[in-house]
């Protein structure tokens, strides 16, 4: 939940309640604007994507992480650096697929869902779907097409929140000439 005010590398604390309530207001407004939950999920993903494609620049500039050599390294950076930097949590990485192209991020506590209780009429709403969009958008900007989706959610009664990440392919065609 840290966010820089100036462009330095130090992070500034902000109230987690303000952050959580702001996100809550966003989601409930979307629920009012769209008739069904599927549309809200889609919209959250789209917003997340737009955040992600911008956030990756900020992330690379401030974190000083180098190029990742494989997907495992990427997973480590996402969990230990990116989540720490922007949400103040460190999810654990588990359930690698044998091929090494899929893994799960386990969030013990998700700061987006403090206070939240899903009402019964929103059972198919994926409340934190924004995060999936952010991950997808950010990785796309570093030439990685991934799929991210929630498979467990504490809001739906699961013990933990789990985001499943799947590596699809490297994006080669939009590399600018002269790089790599």
């Amino acid at each position, binding site marked *: 939940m840290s966010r820089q005010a100036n462009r330095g590398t130090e992070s500034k604390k902000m109230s987690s309640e303000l952050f*959580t309530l702001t*996100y809550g207001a966003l989601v*409930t407004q979307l629920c009012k604007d769209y008739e069904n939950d599927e549309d809200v999920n889609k919209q959250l993903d789209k917003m997340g994507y737009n955040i992600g494609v911008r956030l990756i620049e900020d992330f690379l500039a401030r974190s000083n992480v180098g190029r990742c050599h494989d997907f495992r390294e990427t997973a480590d950076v996402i969990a230990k650096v990116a989540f720490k930097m922007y949400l103040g949590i460190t999810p654990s990485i588990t359930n690698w697929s044998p091929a090494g192209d899929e893994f799960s991020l386990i969030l013990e506590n998700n700061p987006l869902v403090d206070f939240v209780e899903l009402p019964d009429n929103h059972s198919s709403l994926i409340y934190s779907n924004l995060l999936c969009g952010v991950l997808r958008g950010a990785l796309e900007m570093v030439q990685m097409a991934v799929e991210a989706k929630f498979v467990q959610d504490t809001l739906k009664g699961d013990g933990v929140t789990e985001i499943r990440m799947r590596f699809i392919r490297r994006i080669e065609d939009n590399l600018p000439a002269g790089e790599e």
Partner: protein
Amino acid sequence: MAVCIAVIAKENYPLYIRSTPTENELKFHYMVHTSLDVVDEKISAMGKALVDQRELYLGLLYPTEDYKVYGYVTNSKVKFVMVVDSSNTALRDNEIRSVSAGDWRTTPGWWMFRKLHNSYTDVMCNPFYNPGDRIQSRAFDNMVMSMMIQVC
């Protein structure tokens, strides 16, 4: 411990009311309703002092033959009312002792209301809850139930 717990909005309509045993529900509703006058009286009597001290616990509102009614009011004038079985000596004894010592904070009643208040705050922070609606929260329900069965 408590047999009935109610949350009353600023405009004096119920946001939440729950009682055990359920067959006497109406009786408790009346009891809580009656207590609102006492709450109003206490608030206006304490007036400015209450606001200044930020002392939210109103203490014993009135005793009946079988029950005692306690009250608490938040800074936004939301009222919590708790009906307690008079035969519950654990609460009563502590209550009397600490009131004579002049410190509410040590009474179990105060702590129960604090717990209720914290839980109510969480409900208010739920983005899906519209302020002024009836409270339909599983977490709040569970907390209230836990306070009702505690000692019974």
